[in-house]
């Protein structure tokens, strides 16, 4: 070991060991030691509850300021309510129901605005309707508006004439939402309405299904004649003289029974319906309530005009039809003889 170099070599290391501590250490505060950690059990991320979040979001606007602002708004409304603009011409969806147009008011614009031109997808068409179709637009058949107008006028004329001859008119629309329009049309035309399911057999098996229904005898002025009540006891139920069907697709049975009983029919024929099922087709959209309401309203108005004509003639003592005589009413409906004559024959 070389002693001479000991101090030179190890002395440096020795000095380095005994370095003075940093002065700043004395001025700093004590290191904050974290509290002993509590052992926690591994838990999954709690599931978000959407209902709760909404509840939590709502109080973002605190209840009291909200109330205050509401009060403020209410006072403002009260103060300035009469100021500002007012809507004069606004679309009223019920106007077609309350005040339906007359057949003379049919215009192509009205039909267009009522969406009668929209047919079905081209793949669902019935080729028998090709003559009513104007063209294809965005994969949908467009029904020709002038054809719709012409056929609608023709159907309205039929309804008017049948009403003027005192015929019974049945309006049937069994789709959801057609109830009001069907009832309104029947009310105008003084006809009958059907807005629920057509009970199959109501025409072909009417004695069983409608036998208990009430009938009455009226004079030319539509006043009831109660004297004939007893004569109606074993008469078959009445059959309509005209059936207006707003949705022939769902009422195939009704139309079939009308065919069997030889009753003329009017129906709204969409591009997927069969036009030969009805006597007077009206090519139009049958899925739009606005379109069916318009058509029912126009036909109702036509019936109203016919009824008015009939009543005006009745007041003058004339009828457009051959009235049934009291004697014919009294005859037995099955044998065509006077009541009691059968017994008289037997006694003889």
């Amino acid at each position: 070991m070389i002693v001479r170099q000991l101090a030179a070599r190890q002395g440096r290391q020795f000095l380095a060991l005994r370095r003075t501590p940093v002065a700043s250490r004395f001025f700093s505060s004590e290191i904050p030691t974290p509290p002993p950690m509590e052992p926690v059990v591994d838990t999954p991320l709690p599931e978000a509850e959407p209902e709760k979040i909404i509840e939590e979001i709502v109080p973002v606007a605190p209840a009291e300021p909200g109330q205050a602002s509401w009060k403020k708004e209410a006072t403002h409304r009260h103060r300035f309510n009469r100021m500002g603009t007012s809507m004069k011409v606004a679309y009223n969806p019920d106007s077609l129901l309350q005040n339906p147009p007359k057949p003379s008011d049919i215009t192509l614009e009205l039909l267009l605005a009522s969406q009668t031109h929209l047919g079905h997808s081209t793949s669902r068409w019935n080729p028998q309707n090709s003559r009513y179709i104007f063209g294809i637009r965005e994969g949908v058949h467009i029904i020709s508006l002038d054809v719709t107008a012409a056929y609608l006028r023709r159907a309205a004329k039929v309804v008017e004439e049948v009403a003027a001859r005192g015929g019974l008119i049945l309006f049937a629309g069994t789709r959801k939402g057609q109830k009001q329009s069907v009832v309104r049309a029947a009310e105008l035309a003084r006809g009958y309405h059907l807005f629920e399911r057509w009970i199959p057999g109501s025409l072909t098996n009417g004695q069983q299904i409608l036998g208990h229904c009430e009938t009455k005898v009226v004079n030319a002025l539509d006043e009831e004649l109660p004297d004939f009540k007893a004569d109606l006891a074993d008469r078959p139920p009445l059959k309509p003289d005209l059936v207006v069907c707003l949705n022939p697709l769902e009422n195939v049975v009704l139309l079939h029974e009308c065919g069997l009983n030889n009753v003329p029919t009017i129906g709204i024929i969409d591009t997927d319906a069969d036009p030969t099922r009805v006597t007077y087709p009206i090519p139009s959209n049958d899925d739009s309530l606005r379109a069916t309401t318009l058509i029912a309203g126009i036909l109702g108005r036509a019936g109203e005009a016919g009824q008015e004509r009939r009543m005006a003639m009745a007041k003058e003592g004339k009828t457009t039809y051959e009235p049934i005589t009291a004697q014919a009413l009294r005859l037995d409906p099955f044998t065509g003889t006077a009541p009691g004559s059968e017994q008289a024959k037997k006694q003889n």
Partner: protein
Amino acid sequence: MGKYNFTALRVRQTALSQFASGKTSKLPQWVDVVSEIPPAETITRTRPFQHQLVRQRLKTVEGSSKPRVVFEVQEKRIKPKKASRLFQPVEIKYEEDQLRREFFRDHPWELARPRVLLESTGKDFENYDWSRIQQPGKRLDGESVVQRQLYLLNTVPNMTKSEAYDQARQEFYRLRLKEDIERRVAAEEAEATGATFGPRHLDMGMEGENQQFERWKKWAQQAAQIIEQRKAALSGAPEIMEEQAVPLEETEEEAPAAAA
């Protein structure tokens, strides 16, 4: 019955023959009505409407001061139509279709704006004059641009499609900017006169997001602490390790019991 059922169309003939044969004693009231107003023929096929695209343009002619109206008809297809498609309806085409497609391709968010499709009379077009882009009773939208562009193409001499598009578009952008400013000013005015608007949808969404984040932060702190604990256990805190090992042993004991 055959392919077709004409019962409904032949109600009058049936009624007459029933009366003639004595099945019914009286003719129904509607017989003369149906004879006066006969049902239309239904299933005869007619040639459908042949729609053709017609373009109207104004072109200046050399030597005359008045521009000339030129109608261009879309060229007919060279391939003849199949005989089976002769009676099928034809696609309806308008010049606007192309313009509309281009506008909405360039401005897809215009389709997200609410639009009024309802018309009470169907005669709204009578009030429109496309010599200017704004119309009374019609909200400014993509359709306005399309109609204005078509008007320019039809009435301005030597107008090209892109020029008309640019002009209509610029008018549209200017009005949209104006609308934005009007809306902002209206809101400011309303606030100045005492209106209070509640939190907006965006604010409510941000609030929900913040709450969700806070919830996650709490969970994340806990999870981080667990990881720390595990590390600590590995490096020399055996009691924590033992605590965590207990449930593991239990499951091992249960497993054979379940198998048995």
